[in-house]
C-alpha cells in the first residue's frame, strides 16, 4: 500500500467571533506522489482546509476537532519550531498572487538562495548555484539572467515559476497549489500545469490542487473532493465525479462550467464543411 503523506481527518474549523463553523468535518488522504483536487466556490472551506494543513490558519480561527497528519506527524502537537521545519521541507504552497510572496526590492536570485541558505545551511556560492539550478528546473529560460532580475521585471507566469522554485527548494513531498494559475493567461496556465505534472513525475511531488476551474483539476488530479459550506458533498475519481456527478451541487458546478466554458461548444466530430469563416 502507498504511504499517505497528508491525511485530513474530520477537520472542524470555527470562527470564535461569530461562533460559525467554517469547516465541518472535512476528510481526505493524499498518497505519496498523488494528486488531489479540491473544488468548490468561495466560502466552501477549500483555502481554510489548506491553510490548516500548512499551519497558517489566520487568527482567531481555530481547529475545534479533527486531525491533520503530515508525513506521519500529528500537526496539533507541533511546536512553532517544528512547524517551520516541516513547512518548506515537508510541504510547500503556491497561491494566486506570486507577487505577494516576493520582496519587490530584492533580486529574484537572492530570495531563492536565501531559502536554501537558511533551510539547507548552504554557503553563499553553493546556494547561488542551487538557486540557478532550481530556476532552470522550473523551465525559466536564461536562469542566470532571471537570478539577477527584480520581481517587477518578470511577467506573472515567470513570477509563478519563481515562487514554485522557492516552494520546492527544500525538497518537500507535498505542494499545495491554491488557485495558482487563476490569474494567468491561458497559454501561460498550460505551461504551469505542465510544470506541476512534470515535478510530480520527476521528483514524486504530491499535489493538492485547489481551483474553481473544474477543467484544471480534471487535467492534473486523479482524485477530487467537492466542498460546499465547509462540508465534503462528493468525492471520488475525478473522471467519475466530473462526468457523472451524483450530488446536486456537483451537478450544478459541472452544469455552470459547461454553460460558460469551452465544453459547451466542443463537438466530438466537428465537420470542417460546417466552417463558415467570416474572415
Amino acid at each position, binding site marked *: 500500500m502507498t504511504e499517505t503523506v497528508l491525511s485530513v481527518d474530520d477537520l472542524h474549523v470555527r470562527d470564535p467571533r461569530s461562533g460559525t463553523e467554517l469547516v465541518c468535518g472535512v476528510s481526505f488522504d493524499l498518497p505519496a506522489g498523488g494528486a488531489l483536487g479540491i473544488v468548490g466556490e468561495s466560502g466552501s472551506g477549500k483555502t481554510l482546509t489548506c491553510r490548516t494543513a500548512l499551519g497558517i490558519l489566520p487568527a482567531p480561527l481555530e481547529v475545534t476537532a479533527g486531525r491533520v497528519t503530515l508525513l506521519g506527524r500529528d500537526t496539533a502537537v507541533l511546536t512553532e519550531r517544528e512547524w517551520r521545519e516541516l513547512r518548506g521541507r515537508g510541504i510547500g504552497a503556491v497561491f494566486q498572487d506570486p507577487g505577494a510572496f516576493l520582496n519587490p526590492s530584492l533580486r529574484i536570485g537572492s530570495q531563492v538562495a536565501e531559502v536554501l541558505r537558511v533551510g539547507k545551511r548552504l554557503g553563499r556560492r553553493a546556494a547561488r548555484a542551487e538557486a540557478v539550478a532550481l530556476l532552470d528546473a522550473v523551465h525559466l529560460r536564461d536562469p542566470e539572467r532571471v537570478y539577477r532580475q527584480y520581481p517587477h521585471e518578470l511577467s506573472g507566469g515567470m513570477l509563478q515559476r519563481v515562487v514554485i522554485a522557492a516552494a520546492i527548494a527544500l525538497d518537500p513531498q507535498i505542494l499545495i497549489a491554491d488557485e495558482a494559475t487563476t490569474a494567468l493567461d491561458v497559454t501561460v496556465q498550460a505551461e504551469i500545469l505542465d510544470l506541476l505534472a512534470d515535478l510530480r513525475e520527476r521528483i514524486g511531488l504530491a499535489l493538492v490542487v485547489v481551483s474553481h476551474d473544474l477543467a484544471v483539476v480534471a487535467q492534473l488530479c486523479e482524485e477530487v473532493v467537492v466542498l460546499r459550506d465547509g462540508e465534503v458533498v462528493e468525492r471520488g475519481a475525478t473522471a467519475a465525479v466530473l462526468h457523472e456527478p451524483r450530488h446536486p451541487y456537483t451537478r450544478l458546478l459541472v452544469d455552470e462550467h459547461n454553460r460558460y466554458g469551452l465544453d459547451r461548444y466542443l463537438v466530438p466530430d466537428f465537420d470542417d464543411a460546417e466552417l*463558415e469563416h467570416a474572415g
Partner: protein
Amino acid sequence: MPAEPPVLQVADLEVRYGRTTALARAALTVARGETVGVIGETGSGKSTLARAVVGLVAPAAGTVTIAGEEVTAFSRRQWRAFRRRGIAQYVFQDPLRSLDPHLPVGTSVAEPLLLQGRSRPDANAAVRTYLERVHLSPDLADRYPAELSGGQRQRVAVARALVTDPQVVVLDEPVSALDAANRVRVLEVLTELREAGTSLVFISHDLGSVAGVSDRVAVLHRGAVVETAPTRSIVNAPQHPYTRLLVGSAPTLATGAVDRETRAELRRQLLTVG
C-alpha cells in the same frame, strides 16, 4: 434595400504609445443585436481597443464608427455630447470605476438619465426597472457600493450602462475580478441581454466566459485581429496558429490542454506568421 449598418465598426485602427504599437490594423464589426467576443492575452491590445472605442485614447490611424457616427473624428466637445446621449456604454473590470463610492448606487444608475435632462421620478422608475433587469432587488438602490458584493456591484454597473437604452455596450473584463458564483450570475445577465437583442462587445482573456456568451469571437494577438469566426468554429476548428495555441491551451472536462510539443510547434509557426 441596403443592409442595416453595423452598430460598431472598427477599421484599420492603430494606436501607439510612444514607440510601441499597441494596436495595429485592428478591425471589428458588430451587427445590431449581435454579441461579439474579443479574446486576447496580456499585451494583446484588448484594453487599448476598449479604450480607443470609448475615446480614452486617440488612435494614430483608422476609424471607429458607432451607430453611423465616426467618433474618431470627434472633437472633445462632440465626444461629451455623444456620451451624454448614451448611445454606446461601457462596463469595466472594476465596477468601482463607474460607481461613485459616496453615492447610493441608485443615484449612480440614474445619473446618465439625469444628465440627459430626464425628471427624477422618471429616472427613479428606470433605476428600479434596470436593477430588476440585472436580477437585483430595487431596494438595493439606497445602498452604497461598499455595502454590495463584487458581483452585485458589477451588475449595478451593467444596469447603469443599460439605463440609456444604448445601441452597443462594451464590456472590458467584466467578470475577471469575480469569484465563480458571481461570474456565473453576471454571465447569465449578459446572456439575457443578448437574447433581448442588445449588442454587446465582450472583451476578455478568458476564452470560456467569452465563448459562453458570444455569437462570434475575434482573436486579438499583438495588436492585430488575427481571426474572427462564429464561436463554434473558433472552438472546434481554429485556423490561425495563435487561435490554435489559445484554444489548445485551455483544458476542458473532456480533455487536457494539448501537449507541450504541439504548443511549441504552434509558437514556432507564430514566429513566421507574426
